[in-house]
């Protein structure tokens, strides 16, 4: 065991820190449009957007350890994201790099790296959530087009996206339901695409229903072969696994909870002196530290050239627990004051704890519910019979 980084890796860390010192000085308004535009241009110039993607498609060609260092330093500095196209960078881009034609790579990858527009993800359907492979949205070949009919739901940021990565069923007669699925790249302005935002429990809209009515998608926008859509999806989701940046963000949230405990009261004394409060905060710390160290064990495995498989579900479960429990614990600390969202001095920290406590489903349910993660562990690692 050795937790030190090599001199080259440390030099890279210094480079990242120096960049942050110059380009993200203390007091920077990170919501300022001009600042963000400049930030995006500079990190793109450093090839830190798509850092691990191959150089020939415009990525950084960076190694796994450097990627961890980069994410860690960025997160520690509260830096804006590396690149503006969230889903494009997280899984659409990696899928196109792996399965796309040269024409598709040339058309989409530079725009994703430059953050020209957003992508959304058309996976879930009204009757199809955790059991994604049962999807029913239909794609029928008609000459040089697929004609798509059906509905998607819980499609995050569909209303602000220019393109969608979409899964449709092109064959209803395959022996395995996984084999009849095809992946299409769909321009949201295509006639017949109808986006209807859904208001969530925190009062905002992050996701939408998307209806497809005889939407004609050119065959050249099919990603991978017909019937290969499941494979494309699985490898896309697998590329989204490093939890290092999340861990840094959660340690930060823990510090904020500790500050909250210092300034709120419980049973007539500062909450930070209350035995249960102290224990609960330490339980959070143990789980976050376990995530950090689990992540380093997985990283070690990857560095040895062993592929990661279902063990990453462990950190997904911790993340889900922490997201719910930490958000809820903040409300407990606030007591009655947690009810105020805004418009009164009694709304602690502008009411952000209250809205924070309502946003966990995005993390906890998106990308596989905790129950599904437990099935994955039980079936693929413990080899219990399939449900």
């Amino acid at each position: 065991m050795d937790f030190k980084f090599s001199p080259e890796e440390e030099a890279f860390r210094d480079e990242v820190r120096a960049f942050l010192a110059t380009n993200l000085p203390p007091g920077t308004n990170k919501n300022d449009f001009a600042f963000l535009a400049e930030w995006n241009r500079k990190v793109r110039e450093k090839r830190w957007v798509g850092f691990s993607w191959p150089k020939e498609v415009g990525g950084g060609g960076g190694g796994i350890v450097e990627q961890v260092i980069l994410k860690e330093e960025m997160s520690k500095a509260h830096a804006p994201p590396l690149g503006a196209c969230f889903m494009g960078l997280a899984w659409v881009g990696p899928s196109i790099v792996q399965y796309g034609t040269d024409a598709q790579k040339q058309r989409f990858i530079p725009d994703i790296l430059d953050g020209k527009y957003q992508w959304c993800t058309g996976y879930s359907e009204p009757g199809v959530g955790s059991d994604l492979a049962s999807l029913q949205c239909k794609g029928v070949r008609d000459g040089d087009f697929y004609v798509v009919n059906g509905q998607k739901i819980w499609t995050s940021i569909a209303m602000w996206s220019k393109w969608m990565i979409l899964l449709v069923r092109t064959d209803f007669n395959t022996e395995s339901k996984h084999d009849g699925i095809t992946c299409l790249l769909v321009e949201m302005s295509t006639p017949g695409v109808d986006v209807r935002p859904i208001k969530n429990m925190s009062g905002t809209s992050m996701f939408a229903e998307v209806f497809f009515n005889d939407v004609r998608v050119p065959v050249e926008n099919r990603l991978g072969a017909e019937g290969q859509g499941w494979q494309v999806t699985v490898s896309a989701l697998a590329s989204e696994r490093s939890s290092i940046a999340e861990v840094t963000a959660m340690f930060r949230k823990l510090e904020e909870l500790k500050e909250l405990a210092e300034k709120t009261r419980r049973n007539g004394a500062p909450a930070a002196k209350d035995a249960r409060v102290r224990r609960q905060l330490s339980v959070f710390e143990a789980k976050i530290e376990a995530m950090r160290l689990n992540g380093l064990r997985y990283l070690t495995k990857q560095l040895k050239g062993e592929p990661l498989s279902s063990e990453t579900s462990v950190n997904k479960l911790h993340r889900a627990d922490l997201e719910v429990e930490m958000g809820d614990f903040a409300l407990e600390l606030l007591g009655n004051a947690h009810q105020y969202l805004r418009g009164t001095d009694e709304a602690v920290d502008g009411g952000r704890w209250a809205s924070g406590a309502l946003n966990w489903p995005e993390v906890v349910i998106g990308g596989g519910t905790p129950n599904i993660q437990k099935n994955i562990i039980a079936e693929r690692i413990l080899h219990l019979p399939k449900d």
Partner: protein
Amino acid sequence: MNFGFTEEQDLLRAEVRKFLDARSPLEEVRKTMESDAGYAPGLWKELAELGWLGLTIPEAHGGAGLGWVDLVVLLEETGRTLFPSPLVSTTLAAAAILDNGTDEQKARWLPSLADGSRIGTLALLESQDVLAPSGIALLGKPDGDAFVLTGTKSFVADAGAANLFVVAFRTGPGAEDLALGILDGGAPGVSATSHPTMDQTKRTGTLTLANARLPKSAVLLGADGRGAPGRAWPAIARLFDRGAIATTGEMIGAAEGALALTVQYAKDRIQFGNPIGKYQGVKHPLAEMYVDIESTKSLLYYAAWALDESPAEVPRSASLAKAYASDAFARIGIDGVQLHGAVGYTAEYDIQLYLKRSKWARPTFGDADFHYERVATLGGL
């Protein structure tokens, strides 16, 4: 960056597992735990010959000179089969001498601990069961070249088997007036007995002292020139950390043993026409056990590494590991028995042995409340 075991460590694990599977399967463990000694003296000698008793003792003193990460590998395996032996106690006694003793003291005791001719243990706690300076009341009265001790030390692991006791005692009323010394089990006025315990694979008992003389030459720290006043408590605290880490190593192995038994049962037991492991009500608690075991491993391996390489990180990392393990293993023991249904409650099935081990392990070297409180303090709360 490498958070994994070396080939040698993997090999050590394979060797220990092979040895214990062959020589101390659970049928043997059951015989040993019913015996008066509570351990198998024949196997103890073999462990010495294999170099496992002196694993962390330097080669110059008859040991293998390995680190605590290696020790954790060994202890995960002894935990997996609930191997009854004073291995952890002896290792901790050796660590006390290694951490704090003079070269002469090391030469005097370590070889006999490494070759198994002496069995050592820590005698730190007293009946109030408090891990703090205030928990040590036993007074050592100076008398010529020795301290004279009268009183009892409680919750002494392997008390009945040990013949070398690392005793924490007091030389005055102040918080810093503490000392750590070695008492020979055969000395006049020293008697130790193990009591019947819930977990029969772990013997615990009392060390009774009646005008026992602890020579000043056997004081490791804390009095008459052996270290400045106030140094004994940090040394004792470091021993607690070592104890917490060693205990957590055995807990992980035992938790994996309990999970393996329960998974097998869930595959074999048929109800409503299916193996019960097909149902999510059974599957999910088993998955949760896996999550907790994996997470405890990460926390523990880091703590063991810190003991070897980064001492300043030991208190927090040891406490995180032992705290997490204490809650997790307690739940694993209970869920393991419950998922077995009624047979889990029978003496015949092995799962109940793991439940009892989880009860033993929880308070040993501090429970979750103790360690989480320490984490809170260390974290500035």
